[in-house]
């Protein structure tokens, strides 16, 4: 198999220069970018604001044309209509027609893919259920909160069961429940459905959770590229995780290390529960009490058409079952929701499956996205503290 067969997206010397009215060069948004995104991988495009991430995505979709360089998406030019039939795209803002309701929105985009009516209706209903918007399907999208609009934006990106999914800030504006669901979905689509996913975000925790390879852009230039495990591993540190120790034991271990290895113990700490885990537990408790909400409910199971496989029903069932187990992605979340387990067991599980604040830096990043980071998740805090839709009314969760 040649490298071209493996490549879903290829750019070579990709450059985008924005010029002013007088054709004077104003901004070099992307500068000689070489990317090769492989089939079946989740690829993260990282960078601060204005680093060229979104411009790159717009060129991949034919919304902007390169000033120089070459792009191939699924082996063809990005403007090729056939290519677009295999792409799902979620832009950084949802850009949805305000006057349509959720069902009409999905139906419209389904029509553009020429999906037959019966199949289109089936997919629309399944996507509405999956995104938790089934009960709000008749509300105009213009009345939705940002998070709900994001969910419907994601649903439209999946209406054609795409081979390549391009997600620009997919968790922006979503609550932690929605964020978790989207990350689970990304993992499912990649691992079970072999979808290639290009994820563009500056929420590093999201990228770390789901991506296998990342590229870091700054000033339009590629600064780093490679598997997350390789990029983040720190070979000069070692992490030891045990059950709860008393202070004397810790001192003894510290002395042993200093005596035997001649090295300093940098930090010893007790990990705390993740804020994301805590939040999800509270929401689930509220749902179990059947408290009403005019916002999105927790999403249902993954849309059936996305789980369908030519292999057979048994495989379908196994895939759906696999996808619906959150512990595969976030093992720390599930024990917290089980009241029968002791706190010690929870801590043990945390210790076993994760690392402390210092150890995070030393632990190799799991290629499997099921390895959570036990320290407080920055992205969850971002979601909780900075989300615009928290300020508005009853339609929010």
């Amino acid at each position, binding site marked *: 198999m040649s490298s071209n067969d493996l490549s879903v997206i290829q750019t070579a010397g990709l450059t985008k220069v*924005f010029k002013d009215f007088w054709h004077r060069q104003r901004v070099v948004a992307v500068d000689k970018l070489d990317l090769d995104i492989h089939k079946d991988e989740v690829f993260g495009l990282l960078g601060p604001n204005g680093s060229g991430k979104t411009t790159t995505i*717009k060129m991949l*979709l*034919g*919304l*902007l*044309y390169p000033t120089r360089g070459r792009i191939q998406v699924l082996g063809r030019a990005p403007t090729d*209509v*056939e290519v*677009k*039939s295999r*792409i799902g*795209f979620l*832009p950084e*803002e949802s*850009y*949805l*027609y305000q*006057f*349509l309701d959720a069902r*009409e929105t999905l139906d*419209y*985009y389904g*029509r*553009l*893919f*020429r999906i037959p009516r019966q199949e289109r209706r089936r997919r629309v209903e399944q996507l509405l259920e999956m995104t938790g918007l089934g009960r709000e399907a008749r509300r105009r999208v213009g009345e939705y909160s940002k998070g709900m609009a994001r969910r419907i934006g994601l649903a*439209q990106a999946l209406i054609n069961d795409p081979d390549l999914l391009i997600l620009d800030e997919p968790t922006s504006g979503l609550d932690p429940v929605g964020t978790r669901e989207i990350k689970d979905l990304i993992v499912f689509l990649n691992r079970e459905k072999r979808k290639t996913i290009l994820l563009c975000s500056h929420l590093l925790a999201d990228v770390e959770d789901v991506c296998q390879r990342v590229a870091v852009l700054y000033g339009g230039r590629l600064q780093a590229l490679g598997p997350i495990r390789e990029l983040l591993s720190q070979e000069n540190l070692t992490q030891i995780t045990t059950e709860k120790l008393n202070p004397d034991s810790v001192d003894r271990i510290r002395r042993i290390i200093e005596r035997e290895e001649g090295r300093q113990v940098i930090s010893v700490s007790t990990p705390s529960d993740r804020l994301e885990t805590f939040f999800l537990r509270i929401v689930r408790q509220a749902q179990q009490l059947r408290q009403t909400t005019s916002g999105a409910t927790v999403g249902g199971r993954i849309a059936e058409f996305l789980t369908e496989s030519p292999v057979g029903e048994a495989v379908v069932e196994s895939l759906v079952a696999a996808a619906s187990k959150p512990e595969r992605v976030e093992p720390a979340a599930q024990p917290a929701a089980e009241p029968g387990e002791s706190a010690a067991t929870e801590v043990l599980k945390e210790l076993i499956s994760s690392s402390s604040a210092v150890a995070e830096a030393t632990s190799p990043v799991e290629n499997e996205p099921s390895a959570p980071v036990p320290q407080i998740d920055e992205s969850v805090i971002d979601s909780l503290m900075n989300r615009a839709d928290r300020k508005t009314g009853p339609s929010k969760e």
Partner: protein
Amino acid sequence: MSRIWAVARHMIAESIRTKVALLFIAIILIILLTLPFTVTGDGLTIKSRLQNYLAYSLGSVGALLSLLTVFLSCGTLSNEISGKYLFLVVSKPIPRWQLFVGKWVGVVTLNGVMLLVTFAAALASTWYIKNRPATVPGDAEAVQKEVLEVRHNFRLHQPNWNQLAQERLRQLREAGAIEKLSPEEEKALIARLIEEAKSGWRTLRPRQWHLFEFRLSEIAVDRRRHADALEQDYVFLHIKPRHPGGTEDAVLQAVIACGDPREPQTLTREVTADFVVERFHDIPIPTFAVNSRNTLYVQIFNLSDKDSITFEGDDCFELLYPLGTFHWNTLRAIMITWSRLAFLAALGLMMSSFLSFPVACMASFLVLAAASMKKWLADAFEWTIPQGTREDPMWIFGPPMRLIGRAFVNLVPDFTHYDAVSNIVGGRYVPAFWVLQALVLLLLVQGAVLIIIGCVVLTRRELARVTA
């Protein structure tokens, strides 16, 4: 096609739900529903009430739909580009030309539905007004004959004015009335003689015969018309005499005889008739009076000893014959209006493919205004040309401005040419040829050019590029 129709449906939903179209539709419905009960005409006759209703309803609907079309077509693409809604659409497998055409189909479908509603309302209202009790004798008959019974017309055959002027010049020379003239003087004299001949052409002097000529097969495209006319037993001489002195309500007497003396079987009896000035009169003429060359000669003798009779304007002396029904005629007029709107939709969409909404609107309204008064504008540019040694009123800017202005006026279509409302009001036939001409010129030629330009611009444009 399914994608084009999907975009078209979306366009219609957008226009209604964003309340732009809804506002216009509400106004149109209010006009159509209230006008039959509120319009009065001259306050006496049902005929004038019906004519006023048709003029106001069809005219206002045409104008309102023109405004709506400009707003919708200019707004949809430019707003979707500036609001970035188009990012999602063009990332789907739809060629941009299909997106453009889909928008156009949406606008013209909405227009088509609105015009069909107007058509139905016009028929219902006409039936209602027609059945109001008449208070003026002959009113009901006038409604039937002059409005509802659609009639086609033949205009008078115009003489070769230049030839007539040259002949008159020759006569003046032979009579010694003029001396040797310079070429400029001769040219000016001929122009004056042509003007005199034209002014006297439709004037019947006292105690004089005057011969008028209708060539029923004069225009190639109207070959079928004379056949239609000759299928009738009678055609009608439709005249509105006028007293040169402007006297109103005077009665003038004249003798009318028809036929070609070279073909005796075509000659009719001489008929003496009284004509009230400033009123239309229909005089039946048997179709056997038309000669073998499909020409009808009408001779009129002015019985007055001192008063002349004039017929000013093309519609004051013409030949009419019944052809077709009111509803088909109205439908043809509606189709012409629809063609005009389809052109406007293509124009607005083309403008909005590269201009922002307000600029696209202004440009489209400029073209609409120019198209609605094309003849006047063309004349206006001619009037600004300095005569003789007079200074150019626009100074050095005159020649380039006239050049640009003429080019612009030549490019825009002539909407007055496609105004069939006056024909409906006057009970005149709206030829199917007009419909065909409107469809071909406005849609297949000018509209198609605009659509192609719009598609190319939209396809080549970087939609995500910030242009502001």
